[in-house]
């Protein structure tokens, strides 16, 4: 029995056959469902299971029901969308740049989106997300191009460390813009602080409905890019030899990253590390095939984001720790581990 297990386990992990990976994905989906349930049941307000069931069954107007239906459910759905978007954006960037440190957070894409959002709000006075989500896309695009461009200077091209450094610099610059706008704007004190650290609190159906279409579209495009990313992973020459149109692939990837990271940031502010760490975990679980990495990232990322959010809700009673802060605390050591880990550092 024991030997049988050993014999089965070894090749299974080495080859990672499709069936095992499929089962793994189903298990992760179950975990995700559990995390979603926790996200709806746990919070600063203690609400019994009975009241939660009632909130869905009768459309009553009690405070408990309002908190569940109008706050925790949209919050959980935003966590699902934003988590998936940020994780996939990270996987796409890592595939695009073949850089293990690529992440929309580290590369300043999210801070770029934030900076554009606050500037847009300050300049045009709009609090309408239908409008400012476009500022987010613009900011994400500018940041992506800027960081990648800066990092590409020099003979060796965009090395992982250069990309991370350029990202840190651009990120800091955008963060300074955000802070500058926020401290010099009286409305900002209340409304814009949110754009400095990402959070799922204070975001309701409105934010969900206005960002979800973009995120769903981005996810759909991403899931079709698995083969193309596998090609890029072999290097441009090989990819071209295999008949790929590398330039077009890159363009599609950049646009998709912009869509995902921009919409996620518009929904919940700048959040780092999901996009960095989760794709690596997915890669460790299922090997180098992006056709598996992408769906694994899709499911794993919201698990991490929602779990971090639930922890944040309970950690700092009666207030809440923003999920961006929780992930910062968890993510920093993960980032250091990645930088120091040579085997991961090669994509």
């Amino acid at each position: 029995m024991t030997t049988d297990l050993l014999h089965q386990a070894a090749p299974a992990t080495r080859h990672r056959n499709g069936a095992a990976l499929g089962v793994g994905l189903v298990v992760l989906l179950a975990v995700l469902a559990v995390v979603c349930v926790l996200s709806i049941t746990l919070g600063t307000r203690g609400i019994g299971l009975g009241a939660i069931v009632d909130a869905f069954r009768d459309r009553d107007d009690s405070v408990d029901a309002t908190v569940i239906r109008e706050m925790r459910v949209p919050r959980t759905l935003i966590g699902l969308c934003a988590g998936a978007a940020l994780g996939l954006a990270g996987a796409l960037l890592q595939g695009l740049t073949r850089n293990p440190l690529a992440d929309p957070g580290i590369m300043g894409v999210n801070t770029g989106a934030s900076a554009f959002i606050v500037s847009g709000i300050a300049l045009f006075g709009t609090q309408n997300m239908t409008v400012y989500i476009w500022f987010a896309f613009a900011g994400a695009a500018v940041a992506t191009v800027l960081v990648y461009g800066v990092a590409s200077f020099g003979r060796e091209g965009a090395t992982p460390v250069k990309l991370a450094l350029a990202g840190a610099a651009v990120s800091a610059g955008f963060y300074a813009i955000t802070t500058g706008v926020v401290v010099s704007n009286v409305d900002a004190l209340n409304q814009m602080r949110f754009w400095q650290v990402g959070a799922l609190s204070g975001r309701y159906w409105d934010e969900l409905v206005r960002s979800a279409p973009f995120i769903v579209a981005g996810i759909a495009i991403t899931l079709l890019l698995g083969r193309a990313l596998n090609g890029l992973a072999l290097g441009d020459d090989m990819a071209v030899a295999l008949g790929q149109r590398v330039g077009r692939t890159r363009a599609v990837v950049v646009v998709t990253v912009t869509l995902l990271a921009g919409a996620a940031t518009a929904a919940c502010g700048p959040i780092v590390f999901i996009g960095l760490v989760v794709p690596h975990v997915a890669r460790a679980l299922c090997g180098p095939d992006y056709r598996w990495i992408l769906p694994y990232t899709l499911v794993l990322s919201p698990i991490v984001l929602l779990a971090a959010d639930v922890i944040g809700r309970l950690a700092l009673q009666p207030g809440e720790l923003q999920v961006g802060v929780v992930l910062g605390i968890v993510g920093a050591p993960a980032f250091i581990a990645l930088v120091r880990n040579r085997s991961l550092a090669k994509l």
Partner: protein
Amino acid sequence: MTRTLRLLLLSLVAMSLAACGSSSSDDSGDAAWSYTSGNGDVIKLDHQPKRIIASAAEAAGLMQYGIKPVAIYLAQDLELEPGLEGLDLDGIEIIGQEWGKIDAEKAAQLKPDLIVGDWWPPQKAYQGFEEGVDKASLKVAELAPVIGANQEGSLEDVVEWYEGFARSLGIDVDAEKYAAGKKRYAEAKSAFQQAVKAKPGLTALAVAPGADLLYVAVPKYSTSLTDFKDWGLDVIDPDSPKADFPYWEYLSWEKADKYQPDLLLIDDRGYDSTIDVAEKQPTWDKIKAAQARAYTPWPGYWVHTYDAYADQLEQLTRAVEQADAGIA
């Protein structure tokens, strides 16, 4: 996070004030000078202070008696200090427009002989020199003695402290040009007391709605709320103030219905945007007073003059008169 919140709230606490001021500075007086600070310390100088650096809200307290500081420091952008609007800031250097950041070099060049910033007992610190501010800013407090009114207790006492300060400099605070504001204040106070008396059982709750939390003010640490309570208004005491920042109880929006007053007093700094933020929260309407639109601006920690206090009391009196003691 905690730090960000503290910075925000400190800067909220630190925002500033309205007053009128005619500028004429008395140049007489080489005699020794002393005045008692809000923390009980007696500050002594061998001459009258002439070069005062003041925190913004406090500066308005001085300027209502024509005492013009050489410099002021603010906790945020100058244009966000509604209280300084209309004040003649000509010749007054601005040496800080961000919480926790005072330009120490400029301050040193101005050779101040006194620094005026109110005393905050919970933090055991003067305005501008609380825990968490820039180290360089703290150096400013070493340039000259710091003095200020006690921000625990009565707001009337705070305003009187500035009146006394002016008197200590030989200014005739009873002169006609200063008396009008004081008289209007006395009338406003008595009208407020009468309005409250006519509404027995009326409860009030002072809040500052934020995007992620609802902050509930603790009356003991708000001089204005302390006065309102003394004058008969039943301002609800939140039961769980934040331990290390006891000005507020922090409520998550999920728990926004914890206290049910008849009348909401809403921090008036950024009032309109605050209301927008609050109305976006699904639970805001679960506060019955909010649903009934029974709310009114409340001066959040910035009043330093009789005129400003009179304005605020008149506004509050109207709200109390319209309030319905049966909402909650």
